[in-house]
């Protein structure tokens, strides 16, 4: 049997459509998009078509899309670029306590540089407290950065409310939409945000490519120095196949959103209800306001990594917390922010499906999961049946 991949929030398989779109740009139409000759112009056209596809998926204008090397770079550029561009206006940033490291490490960096950052708490479902965010606003606040869908627990944040508050106070809003594009509708005007980060490999596109939406009129300072590509905001020879792949991934994601998200939701709900039949299991995150592909579960008395490894030995790929923190020993900062005890946080597993998963795979997981949990609990000094 093939492995059962339930770690789609860590990364996804590149789809056939994306593969097909990218392929010619590696070895046939391999020109440099900045070259004047035919091979270069061919590459340029491909880049601009992809820009249209990305803009189309986000309800943005092509001029508002900048290609980057991934979600992390988009987040870094958005936050540092805006913080620096508006630093004469103020030096205060508001974010949440459950952001991805690409956001919170950037905020930590800016703190060291003299910026002030407020980390707004979340409720026990992992939803940002908009009222507390509002209360945190100061005259010198220039940027609010709050993620759209959390990568660990999958909760959807009240972005519309937050951007409303921001607008009233003339503050720029950035959102990390790396986990939401392809899962829920992402429209920059409906969300009311000024900057939005996406990453190719989270939506069946390639790794090493991302984009940043920057609303017209938003000032931003480049963090990259060189040939002036992407209007100087992202220097370096354009990653043409990557860009084409991201464009196609966005187009496919937008076109198939309804079907894909319905399928993901069904698989997710089957997995959740099956897993909750095991004794002492809880679902982390909001039960309804959550990504269609995310089931984050805490299994009391067992530690997440050993559960992950045992699932792995049974051919099932999952993760504990976020992949990035999988080598750290600290419990997930997101689960702790939601108020879980460290024990519960240590025993959490994230199952994230995609439309490539099948009902049979979920059946298999639900068959193995109780055995594995039982085996680990038997080894656990904490478990008293």
């Amino acid at each position, binding site marked *: 049997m093939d492995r059962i991949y339930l770690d789609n929030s860590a990364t996804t398989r590149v789809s056939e459509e994306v593969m097909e779109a990218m392929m010619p740009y590696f070895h046939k139409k391999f020109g440099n998009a900045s070259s004047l000759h035919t091979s270069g112009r061919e590459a340029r056209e491909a880049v601009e078509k992809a820009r249209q596809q990305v803009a189309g998926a986000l309800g943005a204008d092509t001029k508002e899309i900048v290609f980057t090397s991934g979600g992390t770079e988009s987040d870094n550029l958005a936050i540092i670029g805006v913080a620096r561009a508006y630093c004469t206006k103020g030096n205060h940033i508001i974010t949440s306590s459950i952001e991805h490291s690409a956001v919170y490490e950037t905020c930590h960096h800016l703190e060291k540089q003299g910026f002030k950052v407020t980390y707004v708490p979340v409720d026990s479902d992992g939803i940002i407290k908009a009222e507390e965010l509002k209360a945190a606003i100061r005259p010198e606040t220039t940027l609010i950065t709050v993620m759209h869908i959390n990568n660990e627990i999958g909760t959807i944040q009240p972005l519309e409310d937050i951007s409303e508050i921001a607008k009233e106070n003339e503050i720029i809003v950035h959102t990390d939409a790396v986990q939401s594009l392809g899962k829920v509708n992402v429209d920059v005007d409906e969300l009311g945000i000024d900057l939005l980060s996406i990453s190719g490999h989270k939506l069946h596109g390639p790794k090493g490519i991302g984009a940043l939406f920057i609303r017209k009129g938003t000032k931003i300072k480049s963090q990259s120095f060189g040939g002036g590509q992407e209007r100087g905001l992202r220097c370096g020879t354009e990653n043409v196949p990557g860009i084409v792949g991201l464009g196609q991934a966005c187009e496919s994601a937008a076109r198939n959103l309804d079907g894909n998200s319905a399928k993901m939701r069904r698989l997710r709900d089957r997995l959740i209800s099956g897993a909750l039949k095991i004794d002492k299991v809880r679902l982390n995150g909001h039960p309804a306001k959550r990504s269609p592909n995310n089931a984050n579960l805490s299994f009391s*008395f*067992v*530690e997440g*990594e*050993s559960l992950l*490894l*045992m699932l792995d*030995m049974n051919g099932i790929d999952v993760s504990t917390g976020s992949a990035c923190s999988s*080598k*750290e*020993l600290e*419990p997930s900062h997101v689960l702790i922010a939601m108020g879980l*005890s*460290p*024990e519960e946080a*240590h025993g959490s597993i994230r199952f994230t499906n995609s439309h490539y998963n099948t009902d049979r795979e979920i059946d298999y997981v639900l068959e193995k999961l109780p055995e594995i949990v039982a085996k680990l609990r*038997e*080894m*656990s*000094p*904490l478990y008293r049946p």
Partner: protein
Amino acid sequence: MYTPKVMEHFSNPRNVGEIPDADGIGEVGNPKCGDMMTIYIKVENDRIKDIKFKTFGCGAAIATSSVITMMAKGKTLDEALDITRDQVAEELGGLPPVKMHCSNLAADALKAAIGDYRKRQTTDIVSR
């Protein structure tokens, strides 16, 4: 990231369980930190006759628990006390640097169990 030896012990841990009438029990770690380990020993003629463990922890924690019980079984108490953290890691073909503290945990639990046994012995002698 784990060696085949670690994975083998993790998937097939030796000496899991409790000894109801153990002569010594060592408990280390803290579930808050994501790890907790209990080692039970049965002693005869100053030798570890039986040993069992229960572990809440990562793959390395479970594998080191398993391997240290194998290493300790049959050894005299002094020999068992000499088992170092490095020996445990070596026996497993190495551990990822970030996981070195797990091998400490297992060695510490064994020491604690032997300590508990010896304390009980002294108390027995004194109270006798």
